[in-house]
């Protein structure tokens, strides 16, 4: 029996309101682990070809990882997956917090929703009690209000996951939020929840996790904690979270600016980590078992942008700041806070608004389209106004709620070439002409443009030793050079395999990928002492590869081939105009060839070869 898990999965059909419990299948775990791997397998089998992402037949899955709720550093995470309404392909999103551990303590590792409720409902879990309840008291309310209302009703110790108005209104980049301001933001999973009339999942678990090796558990975990705290990156992470990545990215010319026209922003210091710490940081904060505490409590104490709330991350600062040419920090913080409140992905939000701003500059959008809203670069009042209008699909916000790719299709006029997206999902805060691996990772990621699926950061600030350890001396110095496309296909493949394993065990990419403190052997140790699973490093690597291939097979069913693994022309054909990466383009085809080769995928179609699938037992 697997230790350190909830032990059961919930299978809930919202149409018939039936709730079933099934024990965790050890065979599936041995092949796919839990978390992202479990959902990849389960949803591949359950979602029919030709499914409408916002239709009843879509399946919405939630899963914790094998180590979620353990004492392994940063083991707070859960995964949510469905067919994405933004991309029409594999949709997956993750968040930290306390909701995942609470679900396990209630006795469950996963929840799979099928069908759709006729009226808004929410799921309430209190240990063995699982019930669908009428959501009329919370429908129409924002994420924070929903948290407050459900805690008042079911107890202050409940952990609440919900959508805000954006999810209810089927904004295509709506997030699912938990613990108030933790976001499973990408892929528009919040809209899937909204389409199913599922407002929230309120969990209270008073149970316990029994671990496999209780006698040595604390000693082993103490050592992992010691290593995490001793890592030279940890103090900076605690001090700034990810907010000072603005300064670092400016330094390497990778800060998306003016809709990714360039990678440097004159006003970067006004929206950076130092500026936030000077006037707005209340305290670093952590999620379950987190020693790095990159989360923040921040505030704007007065004025039109006053709020108190959680974080931001670098991604939100870049998306709502430099990408929109906006150096007004208070507006960046506030629009990020509003995105949390209404439940939206800040990356797609900023990516879509910055698309509109560039189209405005080129005269492709006018006041007739926007209803009088000025879209000049850096107009922070418009950014804040649009954030709400998008969540509620008001006026011009209704068009932007479709995401930049669909909005451009509707508007036309040549605005399509300004869309900075892959497979209809907006590219995150990595100007890839300044870091080639990120350009490749954005096109190979299973959920459309995404920096986290592979999260290839080993060439970002010179992790030469790590590259030597993972790949070997022969790949240096090219692999560590962020402007050199050489060996990036090999690197991205390796990183993707590792990252899907991390998402399947419920750990954070901070501490595993950056800083690269914990690697496969540490995860294998965790699985042994926490779960009692004897899975070797080599087996873990194979599982990672298997999950990536399964995600690709899922996308192939929805029409994806090599032609879709493409960046906007701006990034592959137009030389970066200014900054440290001036003159650079992304040499995508070359990197893709190397990537497909090292994956064992067909170079023409970009799909897995039969021999590869056989090797992986798929």
């Amino acid at each position, binding site marked *: 029996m697997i230790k350190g898990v909830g032990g059961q999965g919930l299978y809930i059909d919202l149409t018939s309101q039936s709730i079933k419990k099934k024990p965790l299948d050890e065979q599936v775990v041995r092949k796919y682990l839990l978390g992202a791997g479990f959902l990849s397998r389960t949803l591949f089998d359950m979602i029919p070809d030709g499914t409408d992402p916002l239709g009843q037949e879509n399946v919405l899955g939630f899963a914790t990882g094998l180590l979620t709720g353990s004492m392994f550093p940063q083991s707070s995470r859960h995964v949510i997956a469905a067919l994405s309404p933004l991309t029409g392909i594999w949709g997956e999103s993750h968040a930290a917090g306390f909701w995942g551990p609470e679900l396990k303590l209630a006795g469950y590792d996963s929840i799979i929703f099928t069908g759709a409720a006729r009226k808004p409902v929410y799921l309430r879990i209190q240990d063995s009690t699982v019930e669908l309840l009428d959501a009329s008291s919370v429908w129409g309310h924002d994420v924070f209000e929903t948290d407050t209302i459900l805690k008042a009703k079911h107890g*202050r110790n409940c952990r609440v996951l919900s959508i805000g108005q954006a999810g209810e209104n089927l904004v295509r980049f709506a997030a699912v939020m938990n613990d*108030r301001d933790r976001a499973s933001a990408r892929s528009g999973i919040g809209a899937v929840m909204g389409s199913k009339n599922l407002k929230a999942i309120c969990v209270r678990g008073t149970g316990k*996790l029994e671990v496999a090796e209780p006698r040595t558990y604390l000693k082993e975990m103490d050592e992992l*904690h010691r290593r995490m705290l001793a890592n030279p990156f940890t103090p900076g992470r605690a001090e700034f979270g990810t907010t000072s990545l603005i300064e670092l990215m400016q330094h390497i010319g990778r800060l998306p600016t003016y809709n990714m026209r360039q990678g440097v922003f004159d006003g970067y210091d006004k929206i950076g980590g130092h500026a936030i710490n000077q006037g707005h940081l209340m305290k670093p904060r952590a999620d379950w*078992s*987190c020693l790095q505490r990159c989360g923040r409590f921040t505030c704007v104490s007065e004025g039109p942008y006053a709020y108190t709330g959680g974080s931001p991350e670098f991604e939100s600062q870049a998306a709502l700041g430099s990408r929109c040419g906006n150096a007004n920090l208070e507006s960046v913080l506030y629009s990020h806070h509003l995105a949390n409140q209404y439940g939206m992905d800040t990356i797609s939000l900023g990516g879509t608004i910055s698309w509109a701003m560039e189209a405005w500059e080129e005269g492709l959008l006018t006041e007739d389209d926007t209803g009088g809203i000025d879209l000049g670069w850096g107009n922070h009042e418009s950014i804040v106004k649009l954030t709400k209008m998008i969540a509620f699909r008001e006026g011009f916000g209704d068009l932007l709620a479709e995401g930049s790719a669909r909005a451009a299709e509707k508007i036309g006029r040549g605005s399509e070439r300004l869309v900075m997206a892959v497979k209809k999902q907006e590219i995150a805060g990595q100007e890839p002409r300044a870091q080639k691996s990120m350009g490749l990772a954005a096109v190979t990621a299973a959920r459309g443009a995404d920096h986290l699926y592979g999260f290839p950061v080993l060439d970002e600030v010179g992790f030469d030793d790590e590259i030597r350890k993972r790949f070997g001396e022969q790949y240096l110095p090219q692999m560590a050079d962020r402007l050199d496309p050489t060996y990036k296909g090999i690197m991205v493949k390796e990183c993707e395999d590792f990252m899907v394993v991390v998402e399947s065990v419920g750990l954070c990419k901070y501490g595993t990928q950056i800083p690269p403190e914990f690697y496969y052997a540490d995860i294998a140790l965790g699985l042994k002492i926490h779960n009692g699973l004897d899975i070797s490093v080599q087996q873990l690597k194979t599982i990672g590869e298997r999950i990536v291939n399964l995600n690709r097979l899922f996308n192939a069913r929805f029409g994806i081939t090599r032609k879709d693994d493409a960046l906007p022309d701006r990034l592959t054909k137009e030389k970066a105009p200014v900054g440290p990466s001036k003159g650079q383009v992304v040499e995508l085809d070359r990197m893709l060839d190397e990537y497909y080769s090292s994956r064992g995928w067909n170079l023409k179609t970009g799909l897995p070869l039969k021999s590869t699938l056989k090797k992986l037992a798929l």
Partner: protein
Amino acid sequence: MSALKFVFGSPTVCTGCMICANACSMFYFKVISPTRARVRVMRFEDGLDFPLFCRNCEDAPCKEACPEGAISRTSKGVLTVNNTRCNGCGSCVKACPYDAISVNPDSGKAIKCIQCGECVKRCPVEAIWITTQKELADKDKNGRLPPLYDKHKAELYSRGEFL
């Protein structure tokens, strides 16, 4: 002032990571379970995380309330529960003004912090420490901490109701 020791924490330093609670339940009961820990952690949206422990009160309402005489003070001043005598009636839970004693659902015995220090040594941000009222007053010279606890007392303490 009393020289009795207790564990105390700063809500402006605590990050809410739960490592204290998980270390506690693992150390004593070999499981991960915040409801089986001798410490509670509560987060508030004004940016305060409270790590909450037995205050080792001089008048010890828990001890007074116990009908079985199961709670006594050791020679070192620590209030402890005698498991042979404790029958899990919960009188102590209702009597404690700090929600710092609870009944373990597995054993049916009352559990509380005994200042063992296992969590203190594991706190990654040194937000908790073993202290006395006098030491605490010296450390917190400007009296910054008590008002933070006062501000949220209605939600922090419930005579066991919120546990």
